[in-house]
């Protein structure tokens, strides 16, 4: 966790300055803060609350409403397993089981080496290719359980994200 003293407040200031003239810009500000830090650190939210002259409770309320905001640090790569109807019908459960075995974590958790955070997502909209999972912004379709270790391997070797 980041200590308050050496916290990079300047990054938050910059994001605030960029958006301050636009109406209703809290969500894009939070998105950019998360992009900068990988999650929403408490000092950043407190600082943003001061700049916006908004109660932190209100900002916290927005953070916890939307599933894409995270109050805890996350892994380097985000794995999202699709729970859409088509994936459900075409056997995503087996893919998820294999992932849990390989990563040794459950949905919502991050691996010890901070490499992967494992999440589920309602539908990534590639139902024609079910079952599907995403690693960061790359989509992997027509999955079989045996492809799972290969895909993870690409990222463990640091070469994923090109397909």
């Amino acid at each position, binding site marked *: 966790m980041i200590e308050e003293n050496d916290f990079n407040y300047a990054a938050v200031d910059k994001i605030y300055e960029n958006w301050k003239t636009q*109406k*209703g*810009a*809290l*969500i*894009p500000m*939070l*998105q950019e803060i998360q992009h900068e830090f990988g999650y929403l650190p408490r000092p950043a939210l407190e600082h943003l609350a001061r700049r916006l002259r908004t109660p932190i409770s209100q900002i916290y*309320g*927005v953070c916890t*409403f*939307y*599933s*894409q*905001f995270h109050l805890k640090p996350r892994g380097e790569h985000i794995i999202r397993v699709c*729970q*859409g*109807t*088509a994936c*459900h*019908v075409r056997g995503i459960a087996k893919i998820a089981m294999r992932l849990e075995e390989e990563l040794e974590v459950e949905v919502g958790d991050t691996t010890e080496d901070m490499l992967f955070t494992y999440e589920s*997502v*309602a*539908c*990534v*909209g*590639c*139902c*024609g*290719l*079910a079952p*599907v999972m995403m690693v960061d*912004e790359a*989509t*992997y*379709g*027509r999955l079989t359980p045996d492809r799972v270790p290969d895909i993870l391997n690409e990222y463990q070797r640091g070469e994923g994200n*090109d*397909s």
Partner: protein
Amino acid sequence: MTAKPKIIVGLGTCGIAAGGQDVYQAIEKALAENNIDAELTQTGCIGACENEVLVDIQKPGQPRITYGKVPPEEVGNVVTEHIVKDQISRDFVLGKIGEGDLPAEYEDIPVFFEELPFYQKQNRLCLRNCGFINPEIIDEYVAREGYEALKKVITTMKPEEVVEEVKKSGLRGRGGGGFPSGLKWEFTMKAEGDKKYIVCNADEGDPGAFMDRSILEGDPHSVLEGMAIAGYAVGADEGYIYCRAEYPLAVKRLKLAIEQAKEKNFLGNNILGADFNFDLKVKEGAGAFVCGEETALLMSIEGKRGMPRPRPPFPAQKGLFDKPTCLNNVETFGNVPVVFLKGADYFASIGTEGSKGTKVFALTGSINRTGLAEVPMGITIQEVVYDIAGGLPGDGEFKAVQVGGPSGGCIPKDLLHLPIDYDSLTDAGAMMGSGGLVIMGLDTCMVDIARYFLTFTQSESCGKCTPCREGTKRMLEILQRITTGEGEPEDIEKLKTLGDAISSTSLCGLGQTAPNPVLTTLRYFQDEYEKHIFDKRCPAGICVDLLIYAIDPELCDGCRRCVKACPVDAISGEKKEPHVIDTEACIKCGACLEKCKEEAIKLQS
């Protein structure tokens, strides 16, 4: 006609997921290695997702040839042979598009849109450009009558006439509710206000739906043009596109399209020299299904928790930042240029009495041809499932189709003749929804499907109103009981009572429609619920707790692996003799299943 051969790779999210980037790079490499002078470009989704990666090659004077399922290691060859030697690979060719001559031996290649069964019954109005233009180049949109409708509207029509034309076309909202778009525009136009907004709902959150994504990725300008026309009609000078953040490619292409449209003065100030300003911004969602509901969406754009509020006042009176706001969905805006290019009369000539034009459906589930299909309203479910989607794979038998995602309902086999239009679907207990069609075979358990959809809506309930927050939770508990063999005789009545109460008293569309999957499966498949409750059986063999593990004595070779694997010693049998599972002791953990090399362990319903 292009002077150089042109190669087009389908790079929507679906194409990329199927390996489109690798294919693109392989083609680049092949062109360089063989010194071929050709134009390599990309396009959005043409709808035939099952055949991704799609590669099109067009030589001057020849029709465009579409290849499907082309692997990167072969694509170099296919391209080189085609361009250098005029040889078309029979292994991958799907069809031809457009005019021109081909060598006589290839005359039998089917005409893509007319002769391929997937396209024969389609009428591509909203998807007219998807798969044809490079969505990142505005000139390609302009070359296909792009922004002609906007030009016509701004230079020759008064705002009232524009609204009148949309009313005459019979266009209804494509996002689910089906409210007449012209009326919505009229309300916003007549609303008092110094400032008005146009908002595009691109928060496509239904599992099983990807129509809007394909339009945004494949033809973003058609949506911008529709929004600008709406802006002119209702007197708005600013608009927002609220796009879910799970669609990064759509967001990227929208932002690019807005930039390009501003450069060409299709957006911005004094558009096309007229006294009309219109500016657009993209707002990315942050992951909340309920934001697809219009009032929740507006709250989210304002930077608040995306919770719905009671209507009236409707957004047309009091919407974004309390100003009159006209809010439509992606496909609705995508249809607007068509209304003005082809005329309201033409548009109204397609479809049925109450539902005009076409609808784009995402076809998924147990079918042979998954993908996107745009069909005239009024087409029957039968035609979509069998003629377009090619029926179920293998000898699979049709059981039901889930129309309209978690808000819709399951339509059974004896309603296959039902025409797809807003009113028929609502009468059957389903709804048009955004247009997802998930086809299910006999191996689908309807109680499990109802439970699945309710799990989704329950977890996405925003918690503001009690019927939705508590009611869906109670329904889900009952369904979970039924699928785990704990169902009670009165559960069916309880589900019906609860479902009706939630439908009639919830604050927003999410809650009002959440019980639909349960109520329709109860209406058409009550016997399945009864089998789960009274016989503790799942006929489809899906609900694990209701299954029985058994060993097929014919296949078992008596290796004792399963005996050793069983953690509760429920399996007995001598070596080289068929083993037996004591179903009373079995905890259904599946450990034996994994160990058996003969696949002798079966799950019986």
